[in-house]
């Protein structure tokens, strides 16, 4: 097993002192405050407080921070290429083909007036020369791979006609069809039942193991992160509290991480009231 901070070979992504700020009429919102990490061909989990900047970190890597957000970093490098100085066109070309993100709100990210199948096929054709027939077949195969029953029926549905978990899988299919080097998956399986969830994770796992994809896996599910990821970053208030081997999550030392573990309902230890967290201002000092 690898040590926490020494990924093999050239890293896929290096991020140093990332900051994301929103200048609002009532002051600056500091969504991300100095985040640094290196991603190798591994499964890197990000867990943390709601509003702690997890999604904004993913969006900053893709250059998708909405107006009036501002992204600052000392270093942001994709396989040796500097993302900060790269021209917008080249950067846009990386997006989708080499670095993809499964958004947290899949239905909102999909085009409401096009069927979900056509959207997957289009994602394929943007990055690969293919006939529409071939793109359709590929898309159907992808839907099947993400465990959609009746792929042909679902192909023809519009986003508002698919269930929450089907929408998530459509989004995953769309992002994987381009075979990216880095996949940022923002709570990709939160709407899936546990059996389908494991089947979808198996696909992501195979891509990391066999193709060497780097996976950033944002999740609130601590048990899942513990069993699925290699390393895990714990975020709070836009900052990293600690970075751990995922398998050692239960032995975390930081009081925030320990507090999180204490809030979980547990099938084997029912209690009338769940423990909650005492947030310490010192964590953000």
């Amino acid at each position, binding site marked *: 097993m690898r040590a926490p901070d020494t990924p093999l070979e050239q890293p896929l992504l290096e991020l140093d002192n990332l900051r994301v700020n929103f200048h609002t009429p009532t002051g600056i919102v500091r969504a991300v405050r100095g985040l640094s990490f290196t991603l190798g061909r591994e499964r890197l989990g990000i867990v943390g407080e709601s509003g702690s900047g997890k999604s904004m970190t993913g969006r900053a890597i893709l250059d998708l921070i909405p107006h009036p957000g501002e992204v600052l970093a000392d270093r942001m490098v994709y396989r040796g290429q500097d993302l900060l100085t790269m021209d917008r066109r080249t950067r846009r070309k990386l997006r989708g083909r080499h670095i993809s993100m499964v958004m947290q709100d899949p239905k909102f990210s999909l085009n409401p007036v096009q069927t979900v199948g056509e959207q997957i096929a289009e994602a394929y054709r943007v990055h690969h020369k293919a006939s529409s027939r071939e793109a359709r077949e590929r898309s159907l195969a992808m839907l099947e791979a993400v465990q959609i029953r009746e792929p042909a029926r679902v192909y023809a549905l519009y986003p508002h006609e698919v269930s929450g978990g089907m929408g998530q899988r459509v989004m995953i299919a769309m992002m994987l069809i381009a075979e990216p080097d880095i996949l940022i998956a923002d709570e990709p399986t939160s709407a899936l*039942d546990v059996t389908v969830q494991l089947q979808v994770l198996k696909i992501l796992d195979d891509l990391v193991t066999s193709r060497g994809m780097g996976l950033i896996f944002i999740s609130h599910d601590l048990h899942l992160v513990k069993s699925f990821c290699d390393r895990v970053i714990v975020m709070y208030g836009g900052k990293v509290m600690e970075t751990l081997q995922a398998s050692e999550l239960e032995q975390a030392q930081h009081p925030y991480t320990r507090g999180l573990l204490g*809030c979980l309902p547990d099938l084997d230890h029912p209690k009338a009231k769940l423990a909650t967290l005492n947030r310490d201002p010192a964590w953000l000092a």
Partner: protein
Amino acid sequence: MSAQPAISVEKLNVSFGDSHVVKDLSFDVAAGESYGIVGESGSGKSTVLRVLAGLNREWSGEAKILGKSQPKIRDRAFYRAVQMVFQDPYGSLHPKKTVDDALAEPLAIHGIRDAEARIGRAMTDVGLPTSFRFRYPHQLSGGQRQRVAIARALVLEPTILLLDEPTSALDVSIQAEVLNLLQALRHERKLTYILVSHDLAVVAHMCERLLVMQFGRGVEEMSAATLAARAPQTAYAQQLLTASEGFRRHA
């Protein structure tokens, strides 16, 4: 004679075109009970809640709420008594309306006076700083939007809450706060809940009984104690329990 159930569903069927997505589903929820629904993605859980909430008009069978057989189209009093928290908060919040608008609107529709105080309380209850009151949905994180959706359902003080994955976008500390709040409200005000969730530990914590769904059917109804004892009867429910133990990588 047992008390009349708060919700009673009898042979419910729902189809969209050729696809028959809810099949002969029947269950009862007692007044003051919290009833869980778990099951396969696409098995019809959200559809059942939408029928009960009066948002879906294509169904057959019988749905009784608070003793009254429900017509396809509901009246205003119904919406005061029954509120739903949607699985997909982005879709259920209007993009051009602030948090304040989202919470004030239902109060205005129902002519409720102490709007200011209620909005403040609802936001505090779900752990949203009141400084977020004039933000738009796109200025919030996923979990913050989810909390607006929960606050909006609570602000009318309904007697029945239909909760579709209410905490799946929340970190576990906010989840604990929201679940504690829901339990406290239920006991104080004798509320009735249906809670759809993929998290078996959450369902066991919140609910007395639960229904497992697959392919549009109810495959097994059980008590939370049966779930916790890992003693369900059906293979599918057993599979869910096994899968909830986490990811296993085969060498």
